[in-house]
Structures are given as structure tokens and as C-alpha cells.
């Protein structure tokens, strides 16, 4: 049993040190993998706020991941072709600047999350799972058949977007950007969890009636949590699009939602670093097992099964005691 904080620090360091080594050894692909892990972890950290802390099992977070991705794709493709996105009533141009793209991705995902939350939060439990899935599927089918940005074929952005002062095409620098963003968001989440909002949200998950009778509206708590959660996942989507320099409707598919969810459960729901551990291990497995055999999914499945059966509370939960969730 390790203290959860120590473990978290270890995970954070590991995620930093591995790509640095790979950089020294000139193994850029390992850096790419680490970047992917960091980005998907970020998506997971977003979902974890809703799913882990808020108890809102969203099976539609691909919506936000995809929105983030398409924000990047649309802005960058217009910048690439020097055509404005919109001319009337006012002119909107594309852009290749990461910070602006992030901002737009966050705002759009947050807005959509707010709307979806407003509607979905009337339901609970499995019904909530399915309504969020429904919204995700609608966007998925829409993106497949909407020809403007490639439909099912997706859209390539040939050159990675720009960040002032950095060469984003250099894998290690792009990793640095993603890593810093991940750490900033995790820091924000840790603050949030121990704040009064965190306590109330956490209590609302366990007993919504209790929260109401002390004069707090669970609906508002959950709506805010869902909105923040969607925004963070949207940011991750924008980064993911930049990692691949490519977007496609798969970002919206329910497999994506499921995968983000799997990271969280694998690592440990409602654990600060759960999604990080989950995403990292999943990607590692995918990479290592993928080389073993054509039928590597069998091994992946077997390993996941073992984790569920024998590691209660995910990987983090099984090696560390639950640190008091507050303070």
C-alpha cells in the first residue's frame, strides 16, 4: 500500500521522464505515444469530473472530444486554404494558433455540454448513460454525412498548428505542451475536488436528497460539473487532432466514449490520477500486445478482466489506500 499522493507524483514523473529519455535516445515514436497518453489522459480527467466525482456516467463524451477536434480541424483548414469560415453577418477567419484554437474548443465544448447537460440531467442512472450516448450518436452520424469537412473520410491538416515560441512539429516540444496542459488541469481538478463545490458535488452523487435539504440544488452542481467536464475533454480533442494532424468522425463514435471511460475505470474512478494511469497503461498494452499477435485483443481483454476482478477501485485503488477525499 502506497500513499496515493506519492503514487500520483510517481505517475506524473514517469510520464515526464519516459519521453525525455526517448528524446535522448532519438526514439520519437515513444514520445508520440507518451503524447497520446497525456492527451487521452486529459480527456479522461475531464470525464472523471462528471463520471467519477459527479456520478454522471456519460457515454457521450466523444461528443466533446470530437467537437474539440473539429474545432481545430475547421479553424486550421480554413487558415490553410485562406478561406474565411463565415463572411456574414461578420467575418470569421481560420487560424493556426493553438492557444486560440484551444480557447474556441473549450468554449464550444462547454457550451454544448451545458446544453446537453441541461437536457440530460433530468434523467439519472442508465437513462442518463443512454441520453448522452444519443447525443453522441447524433453528432457522429451528422459528421459522417456532412460533406463540408470530409464526412467519413475526415480532414487532414498537413502542418501542426503553431504555438508562440515553440516548434510544435518537434515531438518533444509538442509533448511538453500537452504535458503542461494536463498538469495544469489536474491541479485545477485537485483544487476543485477539495473545494466546497467538490464536497457538494460528491455528496450529490451519493445522495441528492441530502444535498437538496441543505439548500443546494444538485442539478446546478451537476450542470456545472458536466460543463467543465465537457470543456476539458474538448480541449483534449483539439490536442488529439493536432497530434494526428487529422480529424474524422471516429472522434465522435461511441467507441471513443467507451475508451475514455475504460481509461478511467482501469485507472480508478474518482481518483485524481486514475485517468492518467489508465490511459498510459492502456496505450502501453496496445503498443506492446499489438506486436505479439494478430489476435492481441484477446490478451488485452484478458488483462482488463484481471484488473476488474482483482483490482478494486482500478489500478490506483488497488495499490493505494484511499486518501481522505478532502483535505
Amino acid at each position: 500500500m502506497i500513499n496515493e499522493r506519492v503514487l500520483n507524483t510517481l505517475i506524473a514523473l514517469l510520464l515526464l521522464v519516459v519521453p525525455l529519455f526517448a528524446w535522448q535516445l532519438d526514439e520519437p515514436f515513444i514520445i508520440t505515444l507518451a503524447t497520446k497518453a497525456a492527451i487521452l489522459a486529459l480527456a479522461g480527467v475531464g470525464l472523471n469530473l462528471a463520471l467519477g466525482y459527479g456520478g454522471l456516467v456519460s457515454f457521450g463524451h466523444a461528443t466533446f472530444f470530437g467537437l474539440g477536434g473539429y474545432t481545430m480541424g475547421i479553424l486550421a483548414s480554413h487558415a490553410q486554404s485562406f478561406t474565411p469560415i463565415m463572411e456574414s453577418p461578420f467575418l470569421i477567419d481560420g487560424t493556426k494558433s493553438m492557444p486560440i484554437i484551444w480557447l474556441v474548443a473549450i468554449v464550444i465544448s462547454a457550451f454544448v455540454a451545458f446544453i446537453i447537460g441541461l437536457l440530460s440531467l433530468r434523467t439519472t442512472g442508465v437513462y442518463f448513460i443512454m441520453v448522452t450516448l444519443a447525443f453522441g450518436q447524433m453528432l457522429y452520424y451528422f459528421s459522417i454525412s456532412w460533406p463540408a469537412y470530409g464526412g467519413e473520410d475526415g480532414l487532414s491538416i498537413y502542418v501542426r498548428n503553431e504555438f508562440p515560441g515553440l516548434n510544435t512539429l518537434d515531438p518533444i516540444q509538442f509533448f511538453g505542451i500537452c504535458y503542461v496542459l494536463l498538469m495544469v488541469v489536474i491541479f485545477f481538478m485537485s483544487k476543485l475536488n477539495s473545494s466546497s463545490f467538490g464536497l457538494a458535488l460528491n455528496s450529490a452523487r451519493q445522495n441528492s436528497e441530502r444535498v437538496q435539504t441543505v439548500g443546494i440544488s444538485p442539478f446546478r452542481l451537476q450542470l456545472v460539473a458536466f460543463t467543465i467536464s465537457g470543456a476539458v475533454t474538448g480541449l483534449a480533442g483539439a490536442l488529439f487532432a493536432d497530434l494526428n494532424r487529422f480529424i474524422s468522425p471516429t472522434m465522435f463514435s461511441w467507441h471513443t466514449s467507451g475508451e475514455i471511460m475504460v481509461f478511467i475505470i482501469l485507472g480508478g474512478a474518482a481518483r485524481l490520477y486514475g485517468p492518467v494511469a489508465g490511459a498510459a497503461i492502456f496505450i502501453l498494452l496496445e503498443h506492446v500486445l499489438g506486436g505479439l499477435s494478430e489476435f492481441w485483443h484477446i490478451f488485452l481483454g484478458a488483462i482488463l478482466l484481471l484488473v476488474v476482478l482483482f483490482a478494486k477501485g482500478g489500478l490506483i485503488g488497488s495499490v493505494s489506500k484511499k486518501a481522505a477525499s478532502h483535505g
Partner: protein
Amino acid sequence: MGNVILDVRNIHKQFGALKASDGISLDLRQGEIHALIGPNGAGKSTLIAQIAGRLKPDSGCVHFLDQDISLKSTAQRANLGLGRTFQVSALAMENTVLENVVLGALGKRGKVFSFFKSVMHDKNLLSQARATLERVQLIDDSNRITAELSHGQRRQLEVAVALTLAPKAFLMDEPMAGMGAEGSKKLTKLLRQLKQDAPILLVEHDMDAVFALADRISVLVYGKIIATGSVDEIRSNPDVRKAYLGDEEAT
């Protein structure tokens, strides 16, 4: 007796063919404990739920502090100062005892949407929370996970959370249920002190407690109030004896 704090006017509520509230009117005045007794299934919890905002009455209205609160949500009513305890404990089971009480204190303070300050380091909230835990004698258990508490201990915690809100009126649905004899005795004492701060609408089947505490008693049978009066009046009311008390006092 003081001013009317809570005024329930002609409430009706029907489940299918069953009239759970059949034109109930009652009030709660400053400084009193108004006990609501009645057979099982008479509609007491249903009435409490309608006052607290969990259920919508079919007709009738509820006034609280001279304000019609019929259209307000549970949370809004709580903010106005209506505190309640549940017949079946409603607590955040995975949280510690202290966290549950801090939540109550937080509800009172408001400003829940603060994202950066650690709530469990907030001296103000903590001292309030600890004080109430002292009052219900759960202070030694304050760092335990609520799920580990025994049934009776949870009942105590339930009362504690309502206390932190420092409400202007209490709705208590069987607070004594599940408490041991000793616990009931202590709670009886506590409630007697509490009513100075805020009047209590008390639903309870523990007649020792009711007779010891109540300033007024209303008897609800089949959704109708059949009698309201002092302890002695109610005790000697033959209808009440038949419908509810049985031959208890005869023994």
C-alpha cells in the same frame, strides 16, 4: 405561543384512489413543538414531503414566514430556513461523518460555487460542524466513514446535519426511530433546547418522547386531522386512543 412560522393550508394529495392528504391544515408557531402522530400509513411522511418540497400537492398551499412557498424547490425552501430529517437516513454514505455535517454548514453559508478554497480547511465551517457533532455526541466518530456507523449512529448524524443549517423551523420525521433508549432520552433533551431556536414539527411514534416534548399534538388518520390539542386532551381523546394509542396508557 408565538407567531405562526409555518402554515399549511388545505393540502390534498392523492395516490391513485388513496387520499394520502385529504384537506390538511395545520400550523407551527414560534417556540413550540407541534407533534404529528397517527397510524402507519396515515400520510405523515407524505405531508412532510409536501412541506419540504419533495412532493407537489394536488391542491392547497404552504406558507412559510408569511411567504407562499408552494412553488419553490426543496433547495429554495431549505435556503429560506426549513430544515428536515428523513425517516430513512439520507446521508452521503462514503463521506466521513464530519464531511456530512460540513455539507450542512456549507448549505447554510451558501456560496457553494467556489472552486479553489479547500472546504475542509475552512475554520468557520469546521467549528460549526464540530459544535453540532458535540451536541449529538458523535464527535468521537467524526472521521469515520458514514457507512460504517451503526443504524442508531446514523440517526444521530441525520439530526446533526439538520442542526448545522440553523433553520427557522424543523421538520423531523421520526428522529428517534432506531435510537436506543439512551439516545432517545438525550435527543429528547436536545429537542427541548432546540425549540427555543426554531419550532419543530415532529412526527414520532415514540409516545414517551411525544408526551414529554409536545406543546401541541395533531392526530392524522387516513389523510385527515382528527384532533389537535394539548397532550392531555389528546391522551384522553377516545377516537385517538382507538385509532392510534391503543390501550397503551392502560398498562
